[in-house]
């Protein structure tokens, strides 16, 4: 086991890009006046010729990225999720998704954990928007360790990818030596037969705490880290449903259109099983410290533990 480190996924995203940019000259980074916040500033310092400041014009940034990709570049178009996935949705759909260009759309500051900025900046719809685009891969890594692997995989994969970054520092949870990341393959972090918790992104760390606490109380919950929301690892979901019955999904996203619905569709079509979706329950967020907000919305270890207990009662 590697050392447990507390770090935001946006940090390792920035670091990994600098690392990969050294050998891969095709990687270019586009940013819309948020170089520091999206942690690509160091890429700009290391490779100024491959760093494109677009100013506050996200639609144009995505289109420019499409043009660059059509000429062989691997562009990372970065902004807050609200703007890269939200504001520029149509550009992502028509200029990147439809021609299946090799553009990586990066949405940082996703979910309610942006905190104090409030509802206008708390994008809880990005996964829904991006997964609705045909051919779009949607990655939502859990910790800095997984983010590093996800960025590498995104570079190797030829086609459009949406990569979701968090702003909040979180403890590493995927630090096993045998860890292997593959797009479309979920990772079973805890074996268990009583129930299955499927978490994605920042919720994986909280889910680990919840599942470990439940284990201490004699409840054996299986835990799956679903870093790829699309394509969903259907095989793993079906197996869990068959072996454990009830499934709980946990995401820092609206329960509409995100992981929960992806899992629901998979279950309904393949292996009907009871499902409980934890997430932002179709409401807007509001200002407040990130950790307090997550607690308020039940998106914390205690909330997950409580939900599982209620289901198994």
């Amino acid at each position, binding site marked *: 086991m590697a050392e447990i480190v507390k770090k935001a996924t946006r940090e390792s995203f920035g670091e990994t890009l600098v690392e990969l940019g050294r050998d891969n000259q095709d990687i270019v980074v586009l940013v819309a006046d948020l170089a520091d916040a999206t942690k690509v500033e160091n890429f700009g310092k290391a490779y100024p010729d*491959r760093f*494109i400041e677009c*100013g506050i014009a996200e639609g144009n940034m995505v*289109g*420019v990225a499409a043009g660059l990709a*059509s000429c062989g570049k691997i562009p990372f178009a970065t902004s807050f999720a609200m703007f890269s996935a939200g504001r520029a949705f*149509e550009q992502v759909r028509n200029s990147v998704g*439809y*021609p299946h260009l090799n553009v990586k759309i990066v949405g940082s500051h996703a979910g309610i954990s942006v905190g104090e900025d409030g509802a206008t900046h708390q994008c809880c719809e990005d996964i829904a928007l991006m997964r609705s685009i045909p051919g779009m891969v949607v990655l939502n890594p859990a910790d800095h360790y997984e983010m590093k692997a996800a960025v590498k995989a995104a570079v190797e994969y030829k086609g459009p990818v949406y990569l979701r970054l968090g702003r909040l520092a979180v403890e590493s949870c995927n630090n096993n030596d045998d860890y292997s990341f593959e797009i479309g393959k979920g990772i079973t972090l805890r074996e268990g037969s009583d129930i299955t918790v499927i978490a994605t992104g920042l919720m994986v760390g909280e889910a680990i705490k919840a599942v470990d606490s439940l284990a201490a109380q004699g409840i054996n919950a299986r835990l799956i880290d679903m870093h790829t929301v699309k394509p969903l690892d259907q095989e793993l979901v079906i197996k869990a449903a068959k072996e454990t019955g009830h499934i709980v999904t946990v995401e820092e996203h609206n329960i509409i259109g995100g992981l929960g619905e992806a899992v629901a569709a998979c279950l309904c079509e393949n292996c009907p099983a009871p499902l409980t979706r934890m997430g932002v329950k179709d409401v807007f967020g509001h200002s407040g410290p990130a950790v307090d907000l997550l607690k308020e919305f039940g998106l914390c270890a205690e909330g997950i533990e409580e939900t599982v207990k209620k289901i198994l009662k």
Partner: protein
Amino acid sequence: MDAEKRQSLALKAAKVRAGIIEGVYNAKSGHPGGSLSSADIFTYLYFEKLNIDPQDPKCPERDRFVLSKGHCAPGLYAALALRGYFSPDELKKLRHIGAMLQGHPDMKGTPGVDMSTGSLGQGISAAVGMALAAKMDGKGYKVYCLLGDGEIQEGQVWEAIMFAAHHKLDNLCLILDHNGLQIDGDVEKVAGLEPIDEKLRSFGCEVAVADGHDFESLETAFNAARECSCKPFAIIARTTKGKGVSFMENQAGWHGKAPNAEQYQKAMDELNSAIAALA
């Protein structure tokens, strides 16, 4: 430009126009008005300007063309077919199920199409990205992008122009098909744009005005673009919507409507006479 070349281009343009009518009529839908107004521009680009090879449509060194006003695909397709990218028979299958030629350009399905376009204001950004890629790679290819005048009401167009000017993309040439009409009517009445030349200049472009139906005028403008350095170049091409088909000329109603059998016949008669006179 000598008379012979002028006539040869005029003949090709008349054939492009016939291809447009053929396509839109058989599709029973589509956009003849703007396709016809751009027909001479397509012809000039594909037969005089672009450094391209229909045998090697993806050649990395080729000049790029982006049809930002993607609804004028029938004009682009007719020019590509005439230039040898695919059989002219494809034009008759425009917009049909399973056809190579989609209602709006699809770079994955049609040889010679450099960018999928259709949502107005988006093609220009991709063209800018291509021009930037050429600069980053030290390559000499040029990027041409055709926009509609109504299209420049989209804010993204101006984001893209500011970006291109900021990055001194002198390998980018914008062509504005300025026919003065959009779906809802007169562009100036819908949401006025004038003075377009001053706007383009103030956003950092070098600007030339041309008669979009006169090859000599187009050539003068494009040559000026070649000499321009450190700035993107924009050509405001004054055109007539529906040009070449008498009853479609200057009629906003022909923006996105297919002719019926009788209208088709009349249009083809006019265009075939033009072709016969030029051949």
